[in-house]
C-alpha cells in the first residue's frame, strides 16, 4: 500500500510517501515561502524520485490543522481533490497529533502547540499508553497561561513540542519549573512520515465531509454569533 502524506498547515511544508509503514521518501522545508506555489512541484518531484505514478497511490493522509487558515486549506483542497479523483480514501490528522508523535517514548504528558497570537495557542494534551496515542485534554484555542496553570495542577511531567517554542519558553519554565521537558530543535518540526503513521491507523474520512480542524471561528462569524446571543 502506497500512502502520500501532505502537511502545509504551518510554516513547515512536509510531503512523504510510505510503502505500508515504511517511509520511502520525504521532502521537508521550514521556510516562510508560499505553500501554494511549492506543494504540487514537491509532490511531483517526490513521486518521480520513488518511481510512482498517481494511480499507484492507495491513500492520502493530510494534516488538517490547527495552523494557518490558508495553509490548511491548500493542503486540504489538494488532498481531498486528489483522493476524490483517484477514488482512494483520504484521512485527516490533527496537526497537533502529528507533533505528538515526536514524543513516542515519553511517559508523561505531551503538549504540542502552535502560537495563535495575543497570548493564545492551539493546543491539546496527549499521552502515549500501551503503544497508543491518547488525547488527555481536548484540543482548544486557549491562552498559554491557562494551559500552563492546568498542567501545573495536574503535576505530570510534560514534554513541550512546538515550532513556536521560543515565544513561550520562558513562561513554561516559570510556571512548570522541573515538570517541563523542552527538547532540542528537530523535535519541534512536524514530520510527514509520522503523519503517515498516524493516518495508517485511522478510519478514512468521508472525502466530501473532511474539513479543516480550525479550533477557532472566523472573526466575522464569532461576532455574528455573539450579536445573536445578545439579542436573545
Amino acid at each position, binding site marked *: 500500500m502506497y500512502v502520500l502524506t501532505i502537511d502545509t498547515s504551518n510554516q513547515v511544508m512536509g510531503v512523504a510517501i510510505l510503502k505500508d509503514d515504511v517511509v520511502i521518501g520525504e521532502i521537508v522545508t521550514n521556510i516562510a515561502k*508560499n505553500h*501554494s*506555489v*511549492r*506543494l*504540487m*512541484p514537491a*509532490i*511531483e518531484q517526490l513521486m518521480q524520485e520513488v518511481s510512482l*505514478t*498517481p494511480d499507484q497511490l492507495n491513500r492520502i493522509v493530510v494534516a488538517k490543522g490547527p495552523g494557518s*487558515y*490558508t495553509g490548511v*486549506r*491548500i493542503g*486540504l*483542497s*489538494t*488532498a*481531498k*481533490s*486528489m483522493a*476524490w*479523483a*483517484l477514488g482512494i480514501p483520504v484521512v485527516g490528522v490533527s496537526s497537533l497529533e502529528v507533533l505528538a508523535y515526536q514524543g513516542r517514548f515519553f511517559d508523561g504528558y505531551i503538549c504540542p502547540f502552535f502560537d495563535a497570537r495575543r497570548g493564545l495557542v492551539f493546543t491539546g494534551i496527549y499521552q502515549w499508553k500501551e503503544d497508543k496515542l491518547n488525547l488527555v485534554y481536548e484540543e482548544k484555542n486557549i491562552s498559554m497561561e491557562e494551559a500552563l496553570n492546568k498542567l501545573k495542577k495536574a503535576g505530570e511531567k510534560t514534554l513541550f513540542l512546538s515550532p513556536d517554542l521560543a515565544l513561550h519558553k520562558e513562561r513554561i519554565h516559570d510556571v512548570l519549573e522541573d515538570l517541563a521537558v523542552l527538547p532540542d530543535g528537530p523535535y519541534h518540526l512536524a514530520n510527514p512520515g509520522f503523519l503517515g503513521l498516524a493516518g495508517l491507523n485511522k478510519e478514512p474520512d468521508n*472525502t*466530501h465531509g473532511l*474539513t*479543516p480542524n*480550525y479550533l477557532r471561528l*472566523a*472573526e*466575522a*462569524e464569532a461576532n*455574528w454569533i455573539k450579536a445573536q446571543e445578545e439579542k436573545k
Partner: protein
Amino acid sequence: MTKDTFVLGIETSCDETAVAIVKNGTEIVSNVVASQIESHKRFGGVVPEIASRHHVEQMTIVLEEAIQESGLTWEDIDAIAVTEGPGLVGALLVGVNTAKALAFAKQKPLVGVHHIAGHIYANRLEQEFEFPLLALIVSGGHTELILMKEHGAYEVIGETRDDAAGEAYDKVARMLKLPYPGGPHIDRLAAEGKESIDFPRAWLEEGSYDFSFSGLKSAVINKIHNAKQRGETLKDEDIAASFQASVIEVLTEKTLRAAKEYNVNQVIVAGGVAANKGLRSELEDKFAQTDIPLLVPPLKLCTDNAAMIAAAGTINFEQGKRAGSDLNANASLLLK
C-alpha cells in the same frame, strides 16, 4: 472528423463554488454552481474568510455533481481550466490547488484563466464571436471596455478610475438599507421610480473610455443627507431610478461610441451587472438603432460560473498555453 474538446472549468474567485464541463468552447455539457449568498447575507456582504471555508467544504461535492451530470468520464476530459485571478486570494487558492491536484492525479494539461476573460467567453456559449468585438464588463469588481481582435487577445481601452459600477450599486443599496446583494434591489426600485433627481454623469476628458463612479456615489450620499437635514423626504424609488439612470447613460454612451470608433462586428455585455434589467433594455434600445449586433448572456451566465472559465480555458488550451504545477492564485491578475 476532428475529435471534440472537453474542458473542465473551476471557478472560486468570490462566493460561488463552481465546476463545469464545456465542449469545444461553445457548448455547456454540465454547469454546477454552489452559491454562498445565503451564508453571507448575515454579514451584509462577502466575508473572505468564510468564503474560503465554504469553498473547501463544497469543492469535491460540486466536482462530483459536474462530472455525473456530464455523463463523461475522465478519459474524455482534455484539460483542466481554473480561475487564477483576480479575486479574493483565499478563495482563489482553493480552486487553483484543486485544479492542480486534479491535473496531477489524472495527468491532464492545466490552464489558468483570467476571471474577466471568463465573463467575456460566457457569451460564446450562446453565439460564435465575430472579431473585432467590444466587450463591456460590469460587475462588483470591474467596469471595463475591452477590444478583442482575435481569440485570447484582450486590449483594455477603458476602465474605472475608482469604484466599479457594481461597487457603487452596493454602496447606494446600503444607504437605502436594502438587503445584500443590493444591485438587483436597486434595479427593481428604479423600475418603480421616476428620474426626478439630476445626478452627475462622469464623462471624463474628451474621447476617454474610462469610467468614474465615486463622484456619483458621493452625490447620492449628499443628496440623501441634505434632504434629511431639511426634513424633506425623498422616495427610495426615485433615488434608485435617478442613480441608475446616471450609471446606465454613461455605460451605454461610452460603449456605443467605442463600438463605432473601433468599427466592431459585435458588442458583448458581461459580468454580474449585465443582469441589470435597466442596463439591458437601454443597451438593447440604443444598439437597435445601429447595425452592430449586441450580445447579452442569459442571466445564469452573467453571474459567476465555471462554464465561462471552461469556455475561455478552451481557447488557452487550443492556443497551447499551459500552467505549471507552480500555478498560484493572483488576486490582482491583469488581463492581457
